[in-house]
């Protein structure tokens, strides 16, 4: 909402200066976004004379003009206007000027190869009229060459951001009322009307009882024999200050009243109305051409203003071209109506129209301001355009009763924390236009019709504290007391996995929850795609089903920047359905490139599956799962290399799935065109990590260390090539839990001396007893048992 100080002062008697007013506005909830000149610096537009015109060397329709603004210097300006000619006096805009119509800032530019310093303006470009056929022709201004065309300095405007609840402050008078309540000046009463209403109202108006009827009241005045014209300067300047274009006195007056009183109006050329006005629901498919020169096809049930034969306008939103007023218009019908906010909103949304009237009606216009609006506008029209006015006729409800709220004063202190007296409450509310009846401990408050936002006693409390000032609320120090844990188990895991991966050299990233469906498809097969209906761009069109979608996009971008050896991770949601909650938190990490690239000391090598496996296992252990409960298998999913990836389940291969890890499928790498194709990834599914029902201190066994010597025995088994070494280790480990302390594979060999379908696996077993030093005999016994059991369960033989 834009206001100017002089305009404000038409409603508010005050001595406060602009800064005081701006501060006050902000303090009472009318946030000032900025104070600036209305439409750029208008004083730079100078009256100028074209000394000479020449044809543009490269364009038939352009001319190169030598322009003088009085001094010795002349400016070369390229101009396309047909009326540009030697000796013409017109208006010149220098480089740097902002053209009011387009808000475009002029620069020195070459037009078809000829430099143009500035521009000669049409009336349209200066928002003076719609005339755009040629540049302005000024007569008898020879003596004023070099002077600013706009006499008055442009006005300072204040831009206020009005919250959606404060419809009443979409008019300058509403803002003045709020300011007066806060102690900045006094609200000036509106003048009484002084015109006669003797002529006849010649247009019948009616509101149908259609099912969606969005119009409650339709008030109008018939004004005959006017002579419409350009608005007088005072009015033109106001319209310009608002950033609007002056059109004609009649239209400017309706706009003026809308911004002045928050009372939208509409003027019809009465001679173009077919017999009568009918406010009704639209029929499916009806069409009409609006004043924005667009044709709209309507849906059923929109509120339209129609005559006998066609639609004249969308009530409260926009008028139509059929009955629009012109300079030639003689007789007008002036409308002041009330439309339901919900109806306005629905129609405007369905047709995607936004107008100043729609903006106001959907927030709630004062339903009892119909007469006031008609009076003020009619008086202005009669004064400027002449004519005779009829009596006002209101179809539908002519008056709405005001709401009454019973307000217990103590509720203020209960909610705000500081007391207020009944007298102070009454004083504030009265100054805002509320009528109060005082009880002992309560006020009976009548809500003015322009405040549709006030419905409950808390709304009154807000009014009171808003005017009294938030700064008066006493601060209560918070108690340092904690009754519940801050984080739950899953939240702790989230937090811990972040720190865990970052401490393993990964950079944490946060990417968008949506992604490119083309990429997402690569990583997620099976789950249904979740489309966003209105994505910001076509490559962010779905919710991600895989944590890899965005990670791979960004990994590639970094590779393209020249960073090939990278470790990235993100912890965030992936989605498996479009319903709320069909999502899970996934820890995703990718790692690409080489270890020790160009190192003087370490051997350079590609990252391999055991790098990523190591990170996932260590993290799961850090998240609280014992290593022996992590069951690794080669069950994998399609986005990984089928032979270089695996999964980790809890306690058994069929237990809850904790993680996947491995090389990203080479086909995907190729399709995504990675510069460094060696890419590994892992996913950890936080939701599958069970919360232990006991704390570590409750489950930790007492400390027992064996003082007896430990021994190591190495075995070399020849076993089927496809046999999983993880299973082999597990078999050995389970042979004797009390004696076998550790089992570890230290060599795997395939090739010479070993059958083609076999491999040799060297395993070291650590043995230790709690009760005694193991004798050779004991060791031989257990060794034999190991060999026998392994042979029995796997068919492996000992390598001789």
């Amino acid at each position: 909402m834009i206001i100017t100080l002089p305009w404000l002062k038409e409603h508010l008697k005050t001595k406060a200066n602009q800064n005081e007013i701006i501060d006050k506005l902000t303090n009472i909830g009318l946030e000032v976004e900025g104070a600036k000149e209305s439409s750029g610096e208008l004083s730079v537009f100078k009256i100028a004379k074209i000394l000479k015109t020449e044809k543009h060397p490269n364009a038939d329709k352009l001319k190169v003009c030598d322009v003088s603004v009085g001094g010795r210097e002349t400016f070369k300006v390229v101009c396309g206007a047909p009326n540009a000619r030697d000796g013409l006096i017109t208006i010149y805009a220098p480089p740097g000027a902002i053209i009011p119509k387009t808000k475009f800032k002029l620069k020195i530019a070459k037009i078809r190869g000829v430099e143009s310093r500035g521009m000669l303006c049409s009336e349209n470009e200066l928002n003076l009229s719609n005339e755009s056929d040629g540049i302005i022709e000024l007569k008898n201004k020879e003596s004023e060459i070099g002077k600013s065309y706009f006499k008055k300095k442009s006005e300072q405007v204040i831009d206020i951001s009005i919250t959606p609840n404060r419809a009443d402050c979409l008019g300058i008078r509403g803002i003045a009322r709020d300011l007066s309540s806060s102690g900045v000046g006094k609200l000036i009463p509106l003048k009484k009307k002084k015109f006669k209403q003797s002529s006849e109202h010649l247009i019948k108006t009616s509101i149908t009882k259609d099912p969606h009827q969005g119009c409650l009241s339709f008030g109008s005045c018939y004004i005959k024999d006017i002579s419409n014209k350009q608005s007088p300067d005072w009015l033109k300047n106001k319209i310009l200050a608002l950033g609007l274009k002056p059109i004609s006195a009649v239209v400017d007056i309706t706009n003026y009243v809308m911004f002045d009183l928050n009372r939208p109006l509409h003027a019809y050329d009465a001679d173009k109305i077919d017999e009568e006005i009918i406010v009704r629901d639209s029929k499916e498919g009806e069409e009409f051409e609006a004043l924005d020169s667009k044709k709209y096809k309507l849906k059923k049930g929109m509120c339209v203003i129609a005559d006998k034969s066609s639609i004249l306008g969308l009530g409260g939103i926009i008028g139509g071209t059929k009955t629009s007023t012109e300079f030639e218009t003689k007789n007008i019908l002036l409308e002041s109506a009330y439309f339901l906010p919900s109806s306005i909103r629905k129609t405007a949304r369905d047709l995607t129209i936004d107008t100043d009237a729609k903006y106001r009606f959907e927030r709630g216009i004062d339903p009892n301001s119909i007469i006031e609006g008609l009076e003020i506008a009619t008086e202005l029209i009669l004064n400027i355009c002449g004519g005779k006015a009829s009596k006002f006729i209101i179809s539908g409800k002519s008056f709405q009763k005001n709401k009454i709220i019973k307000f217990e004063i103590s509720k203020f202190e209960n909610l705000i924390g500081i007391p207020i007296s009944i007298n102070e409450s009454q004083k504030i509310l009265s100054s805002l236009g509320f009528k109060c009846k005082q009880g002992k401990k309560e006020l009976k408050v009548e809500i003015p019709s322009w405040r549709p936002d006030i419905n409950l006693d808390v709304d009154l409390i807000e009014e009171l504290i808003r005017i009294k000032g938030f700064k008066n609320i006493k601060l209560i120090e918070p108690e340092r007391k904690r009754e519940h844990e801050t984080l739950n188990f899953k939240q702790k895991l989230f937090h811990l996995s972040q720190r865990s991966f970052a401490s393993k050299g990964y950079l944490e990233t946060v990417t968008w929850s949506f992604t490119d469906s083309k990429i997402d498809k690569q990583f997620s097969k099976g789950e249904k795609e979740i489309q966003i209906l209105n994505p910001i761009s076509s490559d962010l069109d779905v919710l991600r089903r895989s944590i890899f979608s965005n990670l791979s996009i960004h990994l590639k971008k970094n590779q393209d920047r020249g960073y090939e050896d990278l470790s990235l991770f993100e912890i965030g949601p992936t989605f498996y359905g479009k319903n709320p909650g069909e999502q899970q938190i996934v820890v995703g990490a990718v790692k690409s490139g080489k270890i020790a690239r160009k190192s003087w000391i370490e051997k350079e090598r590609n990252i391999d599956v055991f790098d990523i496996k190591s990170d996932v296992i260590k993290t799961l252990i850090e998240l609280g799962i014992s290593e022996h409960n992590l069951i690794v298998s080669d069950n994998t999913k399609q986005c990984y290399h089928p032979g270089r990836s695996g999964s980790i389940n809890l306690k058994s291969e069929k237990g809850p799935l904790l993680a996947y890890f491995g090389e990203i499928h080479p086909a995907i790498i190729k399709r995504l065109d990675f510069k460094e194709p060696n890419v590994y990834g892992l996913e950890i599914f936080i939701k599958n990590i069970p919360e232990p029902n006991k704390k570590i201190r409750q489950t930790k066994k007492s400390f027992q260390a064996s003082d007896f010597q430990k021994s190591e025995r190495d075995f070399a088994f020849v076993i089927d090539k496809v046999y999983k070494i993880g299973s082999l280790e597990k078999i050995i480990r389970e042979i004797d839990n009390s004696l076998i302390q550790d089992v570890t594979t230290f060599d795997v060999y395939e090739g010479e001396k070993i059958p083609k379908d076999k491999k040799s696996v060297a395993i070291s077993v650590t043995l230790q007893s709690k009760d005694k030093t193991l004798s050779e005999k004991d060791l031989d016994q257990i060794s034999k048992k190991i060999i026998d059991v392994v042979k029995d369960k796997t068919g492996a033989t000992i390598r001789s």
Partner: protein
Amino acid sequence: MDELKKIQSNFEEKFQNVKSKDDLQNIKTEFFGKNGQITLQFKTLGSLQPEKRKEFASNLNKIKGDLNDKIELKNSEIENIEINKKLKNENIDVTLPIRPYHQGKIHPVSQVIDEISSIFSEIGFSVAEGPDVESEYNNFTALNTPEDHPARDMHDTFYLEKNKKLLLRTHTSPVQIRSMINGKPPFKIIVPGRTYRCDSDQTHAPMFHQLEGLHIDKNITMGHLKGCLDYFIKEFFEVKNVKMRFRPSHFPFTEPSAEVDIGYKIENEKIIIGEGNKWLEILGCGMVHPNVLKNVKVDPRKYQGFAFGMGIDRLAMLKYGINDLRAFFETDYRWLNHFGFDPLDVPTNYRGLSK
């Protein structure tokens, strides 16, 4: 006795020429070996008369001790010389680089969420969460923003369904609804999380992070709200005093509603929070609207309280001098490295919020 003196001087004479471990071994054998001079003297002990034997034995033992000590001393001297000689050839240029490693980092948003959680943990708030996809009801209607409310225009919403019933939450406030409908008062939660608006330019990202706060109990007033936010802002920006102003505003789900500005100034192109004559809007808040409480079956005649919401990314930008919001989500290796945090810098109240 003379015999012993002779042995001793004999030893001294030879000992002077000891240069190496081998020399030392030889001298050891000569005097203490099986037929060594000292060993032989011990063998004579038996043939001595008892009164002489005692004295001789004592002298002999003393000499044995002395000579042994000398040998030991010499031994370590020689060892030292030998080690030093060896070390002379063991020079390595320690200014060479260490084995390659990668320094991991925590994203500023995560770090700031941890800081915030730590601060609110001190005054008894717990962290709550909710889904990113929300029903239109939880995101708007239950928050006192019915379908035809103009406030809905201020949220550029991503929709998942044509009938607009499913959407990406535009704020973290629907978690208020979820938490209250599933629990019993009092409620004291903060909700950090991802939020979405289809708006994208230099200062807006289509996804950003919000922090919601909710405290509902009997007798919670706007004074508590002020105290809570004053505490939070001081702790978060790690300053003793903060100029703060509450400005009336409007949110459909709070009444009264306010926006909070904090004072700041720019010094040497750096923003200084808490002092100065400029105001910076940093959050929105208010007393929870009775309609919201009714919608979650909490009796507004018995319970009341406050809610607030703020942009986490923005807080991170202010505190750590980050200019560009969009860079948060672009995963530029260089940016992550520059603004990321060491994983060991876990914000805690006893060790401090930040380095």
